[in-house]
């Protein structure tokens, strides 16, 4: 069998494309979790982003409004979560689960009128360079702006957390909200902002699915990606670069197992379908097994409510 080098390039491109929503949602959730908030509503926020993006695109015809609208929708729904967990001090886990259920339900309701409507084509960058170099060109060029943003995001997130003052404050709040509060840091405000940022990124991840990856609205189209994004954050031990690796492995195996099914490899389909989940988790656990580093990067106050006594 001759392997066409361009075909391999295309496979890699499709792997990268399938990793985009995971990277976006995970990096957003990572910031939320680093501030000590466990938001299990990722799936819900993504699907809200997906329907908002698609609906706004169809109604207004403007892609810019649609993309930013999807992010805003993510922010709005995460505001509910922030208000409940930070102001009314409800339990993070229960509230997050409720958010997911709420998101899936409301997106299906809004989405009823948008089923079967074809999407719009999303403009790509560097489209003219697409055939310049074999193999490399399709990987590097001709993608949407969201695609490039997603692959830059883990590095930006890493820089933000490690090198900037605000990143330091986020980590400090996640490590010990009491100490942070005694240092005069407004813990509730920091957590609010981190939750809203997480919402925006999840919304963008969802919009990528409905507007660029498969430009149409299908009920429940996130299909559990929110949960994978959550798992990536935890198994990458809150490290954005490892999120990128994990998302690529997951995306890669998902694509490859499709091809294997198509070729007719004699492995049970159920096993092939389960493969990406199993391998991603194993790989991330193996590359993150240094217990000292885990201790250092795990937000100590994750999932714990913060009260300030007066």
């Amino acid at each position, binding site marked *: 069998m001759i392997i066409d080098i361009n075909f391999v390039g295309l496979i890699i491109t499709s792997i990268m494309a399938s990793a985009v929503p995971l990277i976006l949602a995970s990096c957003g959730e990572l910031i939320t979790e680093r501030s000590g908030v466990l938001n299990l509503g990722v799936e819900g926020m993504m699907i809200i982003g997906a329907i908002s993006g698609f609906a706004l695109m169809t109604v207004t015809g403007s892609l810019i409004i649609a993309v930013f609208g999807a992010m805003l929708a993510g922010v709005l729904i995460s505001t509910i979560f922030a208000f409940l967990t930070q102001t009314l001090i409800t339990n993070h886990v229960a509230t997050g689960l409720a958010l997911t259920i709420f998101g899936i339900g409301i997106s299906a309701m809004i989405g009823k009128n948008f089923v079967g409507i074809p999407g719009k084509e999303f403009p790509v960058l560097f489209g003219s360079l697409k055939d310049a170099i074999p193999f490399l060109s399709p990987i590097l060029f001709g993608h949407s702006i969201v695609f490039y943003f997603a692959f830059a995001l883990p590095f930006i997130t890493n820089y933000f957390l490690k090198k900037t*003052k605000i990143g*330091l*404050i986020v*980590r*400090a709040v996640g*490590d*010990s909200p*009491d*100490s*942070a*509060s*005694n*240092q*005069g*840091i407004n813990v509730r405000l920091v957590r609010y902002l981190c939750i809203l940022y997480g919402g925006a990124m999840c919304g963008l991840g969802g919009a990528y699915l409905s507007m660029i990856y498969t430009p149409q609205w299908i009920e429940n189209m996130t299909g559990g990606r929110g949960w994978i994004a959550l798992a990536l954050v935890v198994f990458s031990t809150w490290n954005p670069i490892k999120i990128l690796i994990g998302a690529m492995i997951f995306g890669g195996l998902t694509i490859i197992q499709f091809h294997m099914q198509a070729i007719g490899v004699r492995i049970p389909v159920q096993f092939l379908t389960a493969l990406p989940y199993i391998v991603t988790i194993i790989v991330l656990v193996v590359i993150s097994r240094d217990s000292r580093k885990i*201790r*250092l*990067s*795990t937000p*100590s106050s994750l999932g714990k409510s913060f009260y300030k*006594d*007066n």
Partner: protein
Amino acid sequence: MNTNLKISNVTKIYPGCVANDNISLEFESGKIYALLGENGAGKSTLVKILSGVIMPDEGQIFLNNKVLKLKSPIDAKKNKIGMVFQHFNLFETLSVFENLIIDSNETRENLREKIQSIMKKYNFSIDLDIPVLNLSAGQKQKVEIIRCLIRSPDVLIMDEPTSVLTEQETIELFSSLKQFSEEGILIIYITHKLKEVMSICDEVAVMRKGQLVSVSKIINEKIETLANKMIGQNLKTIKKKISNEKSKEQLIKISNLNYSSEDPFETNLKKINFEVNRGECLGIAGISGNGQSELFQVLSGEIVSEKDSIIFNDNPIGNLNPQERREYLMAFSPEDRMEQAAIPQMKIFENVALNNFKSSNFFNNGLINEKKIKEHSQKILSDFSVNTDNVELKSQFLSGGNLQKLIIGRELITSPELLICFNPTWGLDVGAINYIHETLIKINEQKKSVILISTDTDELLKLSDKICVIYKGKLSKIMNANEVTPEKLGILMGGGEID
């Protein structure tokens, strides 16, 4: 410049308790002030008000005769009031430098230079780029102090600074404090340790149950008078009678016990050998971090060892877990009351039930015999004078002293042959310490034995029949308590040799 800090008629009321009742105090720079009181006397509330963490219900604070409104810790910092909390306000997973830069507006380079010069001036040596969780308690405290010094404070408040320090670290801290004071920083020192007050403070204010009891100069005070003011009654001094006619009946024998840990932050134990007879108390001294917690875990069975390395009552028990060891009538009181000994979120009677699975009949066929447990808990509460009779109370609402009484009481209900305690009076006030000490002496009088691992030398000399020192995971020779002096212990604790 002279600094004058005045607290005027400050009152703070919490539901069910007046934490500060109309307190007025005045401080001047150049002196070290002690704020003395038992746990729960309201000292911490007062310093939280001074540092802007909480706001008073009534009353005002004046700094240099100007009214000071402290709405948040930032206001305190702006007014050059520095505060070192009892429970460190550090971010464990961040590096030392990150901890210091977080509330600073200076550039990294400037700040680093400033920190270096502060460390040089006061002879501190801390690696700025390692995570705080790798530091010892003394080093963490220095980080807190540096954090205050960066802002060149006029007032420095220290809340129970020595409760986590070793003798050596305490001495270092005191010399730093004197240096700060000479440089004109007003120092307010909160403590319940009388000796410290006598040794470094100039003036002392005593608080009791939210009220100010007295303000006086140290030279007019004695330990006894301060103690009486602090607890509001006459404190009896207890001293153990060391009787010469001890039984030679051996209860526990540790031979050739080794433990090596994979964790680089733990201490390896090397060839531990000792024995304890019935009715004896063996004290194990040492500076914290020399293997005490590992030794406690090995003795309690949290870490199992070779079967024959521990012989208890002629039974080899080295390979048994804590629960199995309890069945042989051993009992344990670990160092960390909140984390290891009790579950703070659970009710008192539930905590009592936790470690009595078999020998008591707290459980019938897998069901909890609540009535029986509650009766029993009630008995512990009254026998050990815990200041509540509500067995439904969550353990986290007990003060340290009361929780420790509860734990010791719980351990003693099976009338164990041997009680192993690790820093049983850590962070407790005088009244509670006395009570625990009396209890331990009583155990010995009943021909039961105690192994007391403690970093408090006074406590060891008071209670032990035999004393040895642990240093870097090795035990010194075992000495009779009446031949031991604090100086000798000091030398051994520092790794020195005595004949």
